[in-house]
Structures are given as C-alpha cells and as structure tokens.
C-alpha cells in the first residue's frame, strides 16, 4: 500500500481486520471517529430527553409525565449533555483527529493511553445507563447537591461513579494533549506558529487537568457518604453542605471553559479561512485563551451568591466574574475584525460560525447579569439561568461543534455534503433555538423557577412558544445529520483543501493517510498567512 492510502483503508494495528482494527486501534484519527460515533449517540439521547421535558412544559399540569419522572428526565438530560456530550465533544473528536495533524505529528504522545481514554468514556456511559435501572433513575440534577443527593433513595451512587470514570477519561486525554503539544510539535513550529484550534485545545487540556481531580474527590466523598454515612457533607452530623458546593463548582465552573474554549478554537479557524484573511490579533486570541483558562478558575463561587457567603466574598467573586468576560469579548472582537476587509466566501461552516457569534454574545451578556450580585438574587434558579446557559452551551459550544463538523467533515471522510440542506438545517436550528430559549429569559424575569414540572397558568403562552421552538430546532438538528449522512451515499470527493485553508491538516489528502504526512510537512512562518500560501501553491484556494 502506498503511503498515501487513507487511514480508513490501512488497518491500525496492521494485524487486525474489520471491527477489531477499530476497537484496538491506537491511531488518533480512528479514535477521534470512534468518539464521534459514541458522542453523537449520546447527543441524540440527550436531545430526546430534552424534547420530552419541553413537551411536558408546553402546558401546565401533568400532561406527559409526573413530577418524579420529570426530575429523572432533567437529571439524565443534564448528565448526558454535560458529561457525555459537551465536555468531551470537541476535544475528544476534533482534538484527537486534528491536534496531531495541525502540529505536524504522527500521532498523540501516548497512543495507547488515548485508546484507554475512549474505553473509559464508553464505560462511563454504560455505567450511567446502568444507574437508570438499578434503584430508580437519579433525580438530583446534574449538580448532585447535598444533602439531597446523599439521602435520596435513587441510584445516585452509580451515576456519580459514572461521572467519576468520565472525569478520569477527560483528564487522561488532557495529559495526552499537553504532552503531545510539548514533545511532538514539528521542529519548525514555534509556540506562536501553532494553529488556534490546537492552542484552544491545549488551554482546555490544562483546565481539564487542573480542575477535574477536585470534582473526582468530591464525588468520591459523596459515594462514601452514601455507602458508609461518613457525614462530611451531612449537616446532621456536623458536616457542611456549602463545602460541597465550593468543591463542586471549583471544578464545574472551570468546566464551563472546558466546554467553550475548544468551540472558540473552531470559530478561530473558520473565520480566517472563509474571510481569506489572516486572523485579526493572533497573539491576543492566544493570550485570551490562556487568560480565560486562568481567570475562569477563580470565579466558581458566583454560583453560590444566595447560598450564604460573606458580602466581601460575593463582591470579589462578582468582580472576578466580570473580569472573565474581558478575554471572551476580546475574542469576539477579533473574529468580527477578521471579517473586516476580508474576501468572504460563505459556506455552511461560516454560517454556523456567524450564528455562534450572535448566540454566544447574547449568552455572554446575560451571564454578566447573573454575575452581578444584585440581579443574581432576583433571577437565581429561575428559567433565566436555563436560558443563559443554553445560549452559552448550545448556542456557543453546540453551534461551534456543528461549524467544526461541517468544516472538517470533508477532511474526516473525503466527501462533501449538500450545501443547501446544510444551510436549511442551520437556519432551522438557529430560528428554533431563539424561539426556544429567548422566552426563557422573560419567564425567568417573571419568576418561573427552573427544575419544576409544572407552573402557574400565566406562564403558559411563553412556554408553549418555547416548546414549538424546540420542535423546530430538533427538526433542524435532524436535517443537519441526515444531510451529513447522505454524503456517504453520493460520493462527491472533497479534495485535500476544499475551503482554501492554510493550516497543516489541509496539506494532507482527505481522508489523511495513516501516518498523517506522506511527505515532510512545511510549516508556514505564520499559520494564517494566505498570501504566502498562494505563492507556494499557485491556483489553490478555489
């Protein structure tokens, strides 16, 4: 087989065939695609659970499910979407596939550890399913707040253990990526020549590494509490439930940046390519990425303004929360400035990225309202909060995920999808999204609490509209995936560089060969130098 044969046709390890060659592979590209399959499976389940909840909420009273079932649904929806979709999604799929290629490496530094991470991820998912059936579906919400989580009779211990295993997987992936960037970077590539997506995954990996152990131990203590009644978080025995909240958010707030940073990385790749122009302020984007990673670790207690803290603590955490908005805003301005005087070619990834900018900005600005201690008291635990974090997580990370999926799909599979269906999917998704989550801000301001399966009749109309929006959004999601899957039926070859990108992954064939580079990669002095690329390969970029 020639060195150009794609990694689909070159089994790795070579002695296995068929499914075995996938399940025992240490090839980062195959592992990335294995993540893609499993993560999309969980995404589908999470979306379905969300749709059931929204259908229940379309009218007051118990129309579809009882209170306990609803509790189980929002817990399952939260656990799946947070721990099985958003946190691993972009780093595990796109990071695995692209990070080594973008830095000119053959594979990640610890290929076998990479496979182990995938198995831990799958194991965590299976344990999460088991927890639904052992002693009743968990009903605590994804935050597992004590003392309820240590007293409820449902299968919380197993769910918590599942999250522990998933945390392990995420941490090992983080270690792998950091080591890869440090040790396997192409010898011609300095730190300021690394593509921004790799930078963002690298920053994320640090947050994964720094924060995850804290939630790991917190969850272990919750398990010990449930099994042995230790009492460390149990107020009846002298423990402090607030301490749990501190430890929980010490991980889980930085985890928000684990979710959004890789998404920002994708957007930072899409804008320069579709504007045919060097990214505006490369260094400031890098600096903002690292600043978000650092400052984002100091803001956890803004989740606890109403839990009982000193006024000084509230003031400090409120200030730090405002501070973290600065680097995020820097990035938004950078992306917008990248388009200025660019030669914009609209494509599906670009459309998704535009929607990202709008939704993420709304999500970020509404976040400031929550970060300010005064309004926080008013909107705490209302639907405002639900609206805000869906705007950031789905409108931000989710749309970045779709942008990345459309951007690199030709690279993954060597096939191009239908543009018109992709646009229609994006528009449906965005319109449904706004119709779904915008009413939540109003509902929240009016005082509709979150986590309740029913509500007062006056909240009816807005909830009904939100429900319709949910259906439109899901239709958009379904259309998007159908479109991507249809690309397998009609083989339309994409070519190595369908968008005219400049980073290293566009210099190799699509799909890439098993060793990534058949010839020694040439590292550009600056990763987004479109003029240098034009000079090197005349006629490209069409």
């Amino acid at each position, binding site marked *: 087989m020639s060195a150009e044969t794609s990694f689909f046709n070159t089994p*790795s*390890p070579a002695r296995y065939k068929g499914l075995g060659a996938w399940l025992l592979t*240490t090839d980062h590209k195959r592992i990335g695609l294995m993540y893609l399959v499993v993560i999309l499976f969980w995404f589908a389940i999470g979306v379905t659970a969300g749709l059931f909840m929204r259908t229940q909420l379309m009218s007051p009273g118990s129309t579809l499910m009882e209170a306990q079932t609803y509790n189980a649904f929002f817990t399952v929806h939260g656990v799946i979407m947070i721990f099985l979709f958003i946190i691993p999604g972009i780093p595990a799929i796109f990071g695995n596939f692209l990070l080594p290629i973008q830095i000119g490496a*053959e*594979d990640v*530094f*610890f*290929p076998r*550890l990479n496979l182990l991470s995938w198995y831990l991820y799958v194991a965590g998912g299976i344990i999460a399913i088991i927890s639904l059936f052992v002693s009743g579906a968990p009903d605590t919400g994804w935050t597992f707040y004590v003392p309820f989580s240590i007293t409820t009779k449902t299968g919380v211990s197993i769910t918590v253990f599942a999250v522990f295993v998933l945390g392990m997987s995420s*941490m*090992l992936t*983080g*270690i*792998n990526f*950091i*080591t890869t960037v*440090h*040790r*396997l970077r192409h010898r011609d590539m300095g730190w300021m020549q690394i593509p921004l997506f790799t930078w963002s995954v690298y920053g994320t990996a640090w947050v994964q*590494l*720094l924060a*995850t*152990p*804290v939630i*790991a*131990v*917190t969850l*272990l*203590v919750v398990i*010990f509490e449930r099994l*042995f*009644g*230790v*009492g*460390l978080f149990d107020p009846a*025995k*002298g*423990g*402090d439930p607030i*301490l749990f909240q501190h*430890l929980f958010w010490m991980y889980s707030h930085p985890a928000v940046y684990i979710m959004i940073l890789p998404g920002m990385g994708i957007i930072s790749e899409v804008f320069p390519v579709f504007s045919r122009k060097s990214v505006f302020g490369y260094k400031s984007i890098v600096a903002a990425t690292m600043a978000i990673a650092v400052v984002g670790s100091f803001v956890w207690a803004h989740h606890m303004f109403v839990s009982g803290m000193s006024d000084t603590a509230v003031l400090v955490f409120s200030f730090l929360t405002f501070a973290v908005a600065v680097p995020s805003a820097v990035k938004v301005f950078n992306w917008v400035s990248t388009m200025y005087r660019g030669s914009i070619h609209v494509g599906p990834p670009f459309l998704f990225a535009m929607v990202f900018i709008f939704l993420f900005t709304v999500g970020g600005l509404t976040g400031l309202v929550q970060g300010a201690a005064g309004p926080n008291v008013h909107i705490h635990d209302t639907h405002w909060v639900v609206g805000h974090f869906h705007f950031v997580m789905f409108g931000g990370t989710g749309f970045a995920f779709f942008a990345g999926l459309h951007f690199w799909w030709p690279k993954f599979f060597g096939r191009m999808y239908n543009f018109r269906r992709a646009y229609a999917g994006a528009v449906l998704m965005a319109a449904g999204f706004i119709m779904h989550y915008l009413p939540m801000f109003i509902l929240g301001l009016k005082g509709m609490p979150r986590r309740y399966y029913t509500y007062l009749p006056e909240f009816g109309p807005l909830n009904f509209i939100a429900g319709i929006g949910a259906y439109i959004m899901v239709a958009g999601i379904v259309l998007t995936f159908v479109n991507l899957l249809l690309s397998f039926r009609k083989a339309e070859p994409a070519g190595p560089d369908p968008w005219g990108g400049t980073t290293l992954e566009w210099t190799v064939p699509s799909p890439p060969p098993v060793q990534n580079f058949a010839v020694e990669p040439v590292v550009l002095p600056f990763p987004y130098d479109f003029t240098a690329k034009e000079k090197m390969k005349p006629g490209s970029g069409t």
Partner: protein
Amino acid sequence: MSVHTDHKGVQFGMWLFLYTEIMLFGGLFVIYATYYYQYTNDFIAAGKELELVMGTVNTAVLLTSSLTAAIAIEAMRKDARKLVIGLLGVTILLALTFLCIKYVEWGHKFAHEIFPGSEKLASGPHGVTMFYGLYFTMTGLHALHVIIGILVLGVCLAFTARGKIHGGRMDILENSGLYWHLVDIIWIFLFPLFYLIL
C-alpha cells in the same frame, strides 16, 4: 507505529498525572482545614486517641519502601536485574506490612465502635465525627493508592523477570517509582495532620 524513546516526554506526562493525584488529596486537605478551623478542640481531643506508635512505625515502613524502590531504579540503570527483582520484592513486602499495620489500627478503632456511620460517632460531638470521617476517608483513599502501587510494582517485577524492562528501556519502572514516591509523600502529609500536630 513507532516506539517512543522520548524519556523526557514520558516523564513529563507522568508528572502531570501525579499533579492530578495531589489535587485529588488536595480536596480532602481543604475539607480537613475547614473542619479543623470549625472544630479545633474536638479535633485535638480525637487526635489524641490515635495510636501514635503504629503510625510512626508505618511511616518508617513506607519511607524504607520508598528507599528500596529508589535503589531498584538505580540498580536497573546498571542492569543488575536480579538485584532489581529482589528490591522490588522487598518494596512490595514493606507495602503489605504497611497495609497490615493499618488493618490492625482500623480494627482497634472498629472494636471501640468507631467507624463511619456508627452509633457512637453519630451521638458524639460533631467535631469528633468529622475527624474520624476524614481519618477513615483519607487513610482509606491512601490505602487504596498503596494497593494500586503494589499492583503497579508487581507488574514491574514480572516485566523485569521476563526481560521486558531492562536498563535500556525502563520508563515504566521509573514512572512506577515516581508513583510510589507520591504515595509515600501523601502519607508524609497525612501522618502529621492526624497523629502529630494535634
């Protein structure tokens, strides 16, 4: 697939992993600090009940095992495989001794109705409950790490015997040694917190 010979990178990855282990215990140290601040007198009273002699002996045992592990790695550099096998064997034996002493210590406490969730602790002062809750959680989690360390060192021993680890390829052994030193270091923090400073 090419075999990595980048020792620096392998150790770099291991140090990152060790950091996560320290943070894992770090969470428990934070809990300890909080409750020590809240229930200082109860902690001091409860801490005096622990068996200082056993704790001290265990510290000596674990420190010695760390020494034998370190010598084993140095011996491997000189490719003295028989010596390595002997030293790793001693390390594992010392680790098992540590667990046995811990077992006896826990057994004594259990005999006095002191264990997580017991009637006696639930009805006693809150600070004592917290102290023993932390004692069992932290030493228990540490014991779990000792067991993992025994398994890891056992694998190293078997690999050395079969020639898979040798002087030219000893990343696994070196990393296992680092892990074992971490287990030792965590105990060096646990010991004073529970036995000495109170």
